[in-house]
């Protein structure tokens, strides 16, 4: 069987290149034609073909809210330690984002200096930022920068303008929120309503 027989879109290679790295394709990303790739996958016909095609090599396209990513079929998940560590870090970061005056949500644009400035003015935020582990940078600004850099490497953010250093929050950010939302908090019954949040 030839690759042409699948009748795949010609961007298949690009799609694979992004997603096989473990990155997300978000609908509001603009770098490297990401939104275009999103549209291609989002086309139901293409989606079925791509899914069938990637399934052959045991990749599965997972669909989220305005974003796509790969998972591996029939493969035990590994590296629990590392995963836990990473997600603990995400909780720190999202907690910081959540505590900002101007909350950072999907589609938000911000500059690291803005966050650093706000952290500087607010003791609580400052403490939060300083306590986020794994960063060697000393100044608040550099720390925020590193966080942004990390988040954009994980394709949750996008460096929209290098000159002004402005970042944009991509749709893939929902993924993190989804994960956090699915964590159940035991014991306290008064907080269980958080689990029944309704969204579609």
């Amino acid at each position, binding site marked *: 069987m030839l690759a042409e027989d699948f009748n795949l879109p010609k961007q298949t290679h690009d799609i694979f290149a992004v997603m096989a*790295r473990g990155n997300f394709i978000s609908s509001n990303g603009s770098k490297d034609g990401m939104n275009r790739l999103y549209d291609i996958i989002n086309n139901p016909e293409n989606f079925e073909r791509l899914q069938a095609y990637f399934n052959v090599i045991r990749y599965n396209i997972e669909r989220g809210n305005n974003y796509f990513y*790969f998972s591996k079929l029939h493969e035990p998940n590994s590296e629990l330690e590392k995963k836990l560590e990473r997600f603990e870090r995400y909780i720190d970061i999202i907690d910081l984002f959540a505590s900002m005056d101007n909350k950072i949500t*999907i*589609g938000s644009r911000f500059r690291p200096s803005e966050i650093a400035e706000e952290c500087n003015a607010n003791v609580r935020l400052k403490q939060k930022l300083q306590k986020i582990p794994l960063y060697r940078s000393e100044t608040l600004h550099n720390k925020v920068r590193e966080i942004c850099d990390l988040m954009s490497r994980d394709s949750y953010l996008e460096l929209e303008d290098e000159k002004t250093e402005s970042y944009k929050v991509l749709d893939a950010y929902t993924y993190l929120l989804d994960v956090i939302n699915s964590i*159940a*908090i035991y014991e306290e019954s008064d907080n269980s309503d958080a689990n029944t949040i309704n969204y579609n």
Partner: protein
Amino acid sequence: MALQVNVNDILTQLYSQRGVVEFLFANRENVTVNELLNRNDISQDQYQRLKSLDLVYEYESIVSLNDAVVAMFEDFMEIGEVTPGFINDYINELNRYIRFYQDAREMRFLRSIKKYLKRINGALTREIIKLQKNVDDTYKNESNYRIKLQKLEAYREKRDTIIDFIKKTSDVVEQTRALFSLTNDSELYGIVQSLKVSLIENLDYLIEIQTDITDFINKIQFQLDVYKKAQRLKEIKDHGTLHFKTGFKEVVNNVNTLKYNGHKTPKTKIAVDTLYTDDGHVLCKRIAEKYKLTRLMIRGIADKMSSNFKDKGLEQQIKLDTEKLVERFLTQKKNNLFEYLIEYKFPKAIGTVTFEERLSLFVEIAMEYQTKLDFKYRLNYFDYLDNEQKKKRLGYTLILPIEDKPKSKKEKV
């Protein structure tokens, strides 16, 4: 407007400064005068002319296009803010003209009725498209979540307004059905029909937009709720009980993204054959320089082949043959060069050598081995049949191998 203007002036100005107009339209909010004049496609004079026609405004050194021009572009491109209000004006106008027409059945009122019906139809569709675009854009690109929520709520209201207008319009159309059928005007009939169809269609779109808006608002609400939860989790984490009091471990364990499961980007080895190509050599060289390996640096890149390398190869082949050929020719005494070449039995590997080829070989040898040959400066003649089986005669110089006492043989066939 300060000056008497006409359509031609405006169009000419807009056209001749189209680069600037485009630039201003794209950067509507923040172009300063200096920035604009620094562009090399507009001079001070040209800028003044635009200003004198009121096509651009200047306020505290910020330049902007005339609102009317911007609105025109936005209308055509179906972008910009949703402004359903003027549909109401159209409906009022329509009603007014219908009343006029009821009083006095005059064609001019009918024309206006048609005009407004068409306008309402177009405006409704355009506003709905704009609404759809703006809702989507607001959700995806508005950075401040509070503003985002407010904007979405505002769009919800606008949607309701548009629905009202659709109802009003269809009421008007219903009430005047009898009147319209009286006119017996087929064009009017067509307009009303298409209006009815698009009203129904537009209602469908609006319902869809409504679900979108609700969806987006829910999503934002969801994000805020998750933020609250993230803060609680952080609190629990700071108490060091994250792994025990929550389902954190289980949830993270089930995370199935590639990135968090230690999958690295698929890496492939370089094919050995690639290393033998020129690209591969460049690669090797770079690595060799990096690690100071001289072994890898020896082999150089082959020169670029000339486009006619194939022909050259052939020529060389024949040349190799000619050397031997000449040697053989020199050792014999029976024939002159021409005859020798014509009769020579070339090895089979070369294939059949045509008459023309033998002829060019003759010329080539004559030129290259001048010193070894004895030129007689006499003409001999050779008869042959050409491709069309016609008899032809060819004259050639008699050439013999150099001898102590050269003998010329004159032969005529």
